[in-house]
């Protein structure tokens, strides 16, 4: 039997990268798998994608998905600047970038905040495990206050909440999820890929080797027992748009469904669970995050969404051809222009 293929005639396998070298069971590997699935299902053209990362176990993962896309495993904490440059060079590229909680929350805090401020349009995934995996299990800045790790002792500092940081910095798309929740991760990834701005996905992704005790809020056992999805999420592609009204019946009453229209005409459809969270309300978003932090509630889903501001390429007013594709005519002003300029500078 030939393998199933997508609209481009490609099998799911063709969206894979090299074999993972992470620990068996690492949360990061499931996220890679969700990326592969979504890329396959959406039928993306890999050569128009780039994948960029910092340094860490999480940052190794771009080698494991989308083997047909150019990738850049950059420096610890500096993925955002590399993405910024690459997308200025070629604004037609789409980008999936992967970082870790150490990578973004510690050394990379400045770049994390500032890339959001510039609204560089890409999917910014933080594979958040509360530890430095690759350097063997030190606390990261997202580690729980009061947590104890065998070697490094007690963490007496409050955690940094990267989703909250993203909201405060002006991100127009902020979601939190759990690598154990494949369905939600996939839905959010799809939505993020359709977003026209920095889309931050803070995905709790357990480190089975260094931080998987159930006392940790970044563990599988904790996540499995405590995840509280804010909504059920479904993505309605642009061509799906007319089905919108039809669906409004069924299990859901009016008001129980929030449809968030995306830049490309698609919709994120959120079906209420037992809470009233509306991601279009900034104050609610901040409240939900603050409360989660205070009461250690593991709320997941689309936390915040707003109609995106202009992206960096927009504010730079760039020509429509990607800069990397310009020809000599656009790269070098004419000899006449040059000579006019020189004459203007002459003494007489």
């Amino acid at each position, binding site marked *: 039997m030939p393998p199933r293929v997508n609209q481009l005639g490609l099998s799911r396998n063709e969206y894979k990268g090299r074999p993972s070298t992470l620990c068996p069971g690492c949360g990061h590997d499931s996220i890679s798998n969700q990326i592969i699935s979504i890329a396959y299902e959406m039928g993306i053209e890999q050569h128009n994608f780039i994948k960029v990362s910092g340094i860490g176990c999480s940052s190794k993962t771009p080698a494991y998905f989308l*083997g047909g896309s150019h990738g850049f495993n950059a420096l610890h904490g*500096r993925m955002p600047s*590399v993405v910024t*440059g690459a*997308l200025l060079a070629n604004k037609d590229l789409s980008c999936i970038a992967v970082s870790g909680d150490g990578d973004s929350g510690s050394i990379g805090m400045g770049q994390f905040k500032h890339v959001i401020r510039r609204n560089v349009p890409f999917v910014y995934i933080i594979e958040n495990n509360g530890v430095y995996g690759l350097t063997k299990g030190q606390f990261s800045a997202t580690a729980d206050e009061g947590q104890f790790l065998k070697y490094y002792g007690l963490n007496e500092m409050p955690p940094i909440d990267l989703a909250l940081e993203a909201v405060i910095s002006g991100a127009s798309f902020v979601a939190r999820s759990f690598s154990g929740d494949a369905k939600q991760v996939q839905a959010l990834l799809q939505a993020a890929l359709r977003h026209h701005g920095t889309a931050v996905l803070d995905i709790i992704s357990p480190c089975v080797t260094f931080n998987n005790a159930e006392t940790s809020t970044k563990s599988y056992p904790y996540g499995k027992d405590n995840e509280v999805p804010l909504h059920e999420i479904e993505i309605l592609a642009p061509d799906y748009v007319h089905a919108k009204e039809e669906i409004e019946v069924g299990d859901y009453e009016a008001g129980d469904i929030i449809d968030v229209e995306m830049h490309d005409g698609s919709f994120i459809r959120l079906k209420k669970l037992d809470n009233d969270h509306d991601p279009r309300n900034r104050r609610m978003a901040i409240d939900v995050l603050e409360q989660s932090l205070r009461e250690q509630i593991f709320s997941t889903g689309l936390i915040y969404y707003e109609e995106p501001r202009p992206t960096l*390429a927009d504010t730079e007013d760039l020509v429509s051809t990607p800069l990397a594709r310009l020809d000599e005519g656009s790269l070098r002003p004419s000899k006449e*222009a040059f000579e006019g300029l020189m004459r203007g500078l002459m003494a007489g």
Partner: protein
Amino acid sequence: MAINVQSKPKVHTREPVINDFAFSVATKNGSGSQTSNNVLVMSLFRMGIPVNGKNLFPSNIKGLPTWYTIRASKDGYTARKAITEIVVAYNDGTATEDVANLPPGGVCITTDKIARVIKQRDDISYYEIPVAALMKQTDVPSAFRKLVENMTYVGAVAKLFDIPLDLIYDVLLSNFKGKEKPAKMNHDVIKLAYDWTAENIEKTDPYRFERMDGTSGKIMMTGNDAGALGAVFGGVNVVAWYPITPSTSFVDGIISFRHLRQNENKENTIAIVQAEDELAAAGIITGAGWAGSRALTSTSGPGISLMAEFAGLAYFAEVPAVFWNITRMGPSTGLPTRTSQGDLLFTHFLGHGDSRQLCLLPGNLKEAFEFGWKSFDLAEALQSPVFVISDLDLGMNNWLSDPFDYPDQPIDRGKVLNAAQLQSFIDEHGKWGRYMDVDGDGVPYRTVPGTNHPFSAYFARGTGHDVMATYSERSDDWVENMHRLSLKMDTAREMLPQPIIENSSGSDIGIVTFGTNEDAVREARDWLANDGIQTDYLRVRALPIASAVGDFIHSHKSVFVIENNFDGQLNQLLHIESPEDISHVRSLALGDGLPMTPSWIYENLKEQEG
């Protein structure tokens, strides 16, 4: 008006000195003296007199001492002179010292107020301008009054040394981009001072300007503007930077020339991002270079320090990108507004591990422009970061130059494969690997994201990799890659701008230098030649050092390495690159924060050689 009549100086009129003396204008910064000084320099330029202007300014915004030196030289020498014959002493805080620094027979132009408090010397001419009284006669709105006050010395200087008023007006007009109102306001003050000087001051000094034909067809510009213009003609696409003196005006230059590259809808082909810091700036251009555009940053010492990690990544992942280092005085924050050539070693070895960065060393305005565009061709041809090491002196001061040459070669994108070329490559070589060296020059072929070919993708990284760009921890892969990079260095060595050599004298003495010392060395060599000491000359223009430099060194019995830093860094690099005996090479290194002078070179070389 109670204006004292000038007391006559003891020195009486001597042989006239025409178009061959220097001024120093001492003011406080933020007081608007920059316009006055520019007007003077540009006026001399338009009179056809070879001239330079060097600004010695403090690291604050307002109120601290600034000196602007202007040298006119009928013979076309435009190096800094250690001593200026004339001082405009408009800063009470430094006036005493400024006057003390004058040579006998010098001239002090000052305000009546300052004159009262400074020690008088009887071997110089004093001219006192009643600034406050003059300003009272103008109708300049009070908001602008402080700013145009300095025009009084322009008027006095114009009268005393013969600069035509109408020419000054023209210069003012250009300065204010054709706007008549400010031009007139300033000119009125100048005229007032001019007329007052004509009436009240008896000239007792021998200095005078005279129109000549020394600048026709020449241009004046700062090195930062020249480099920026070069970048614009070199096809720069992405500029990422963080403000820092003295490199800020480099990016300001690109901003001002950006329109040259807009399309008919005023859309840009140059993105300019003020990053949150230098690490981000370096990251942005690394990403942009990797993705196939021409990217540049401009910074200075502290920024270079912060870019070390990215410089190493770009070097090792072989990403083209251009870094301008407009050097100021270090170590550390150092003297942010003083010039230096002290980053040579650090920039060349930037990044931990065995890395050597390609560096271009422009020595004058023309090269700032030329390396401005060529750096991109070299970065792409060699798939490597390229550092252009300029300095504050070249970057921020006005330099006289022949007009630049339009690039004499089309843009060279280096070994980039598009989809079709990639297919041909695969047809020819069986496969394509990012780090395969099929040409034997150490330079592989690359693809950029967005290339529509099933085998175009590769994974760039700063970690160990094999020729396919796959992660590898194998010793043999590592060593093979390092060998290829060495080979690439050797390719670069002869591809980068070759040294300028003047080997004609047949002398045993060779002078080696780099960068902005050129003018001072040239003048010092003339002085030495006057004393009967012939010298040959080599100016290094790139690192790694070309083999021609070794030949030059070995063909001279005595070699002096002249540079403007404390440790003699070029001298150190020459020793690194010369396994053979070069004990005849001596270091003449300065590092006092000021542009090199001919007299320092002349004296030190004579002492050493004598």
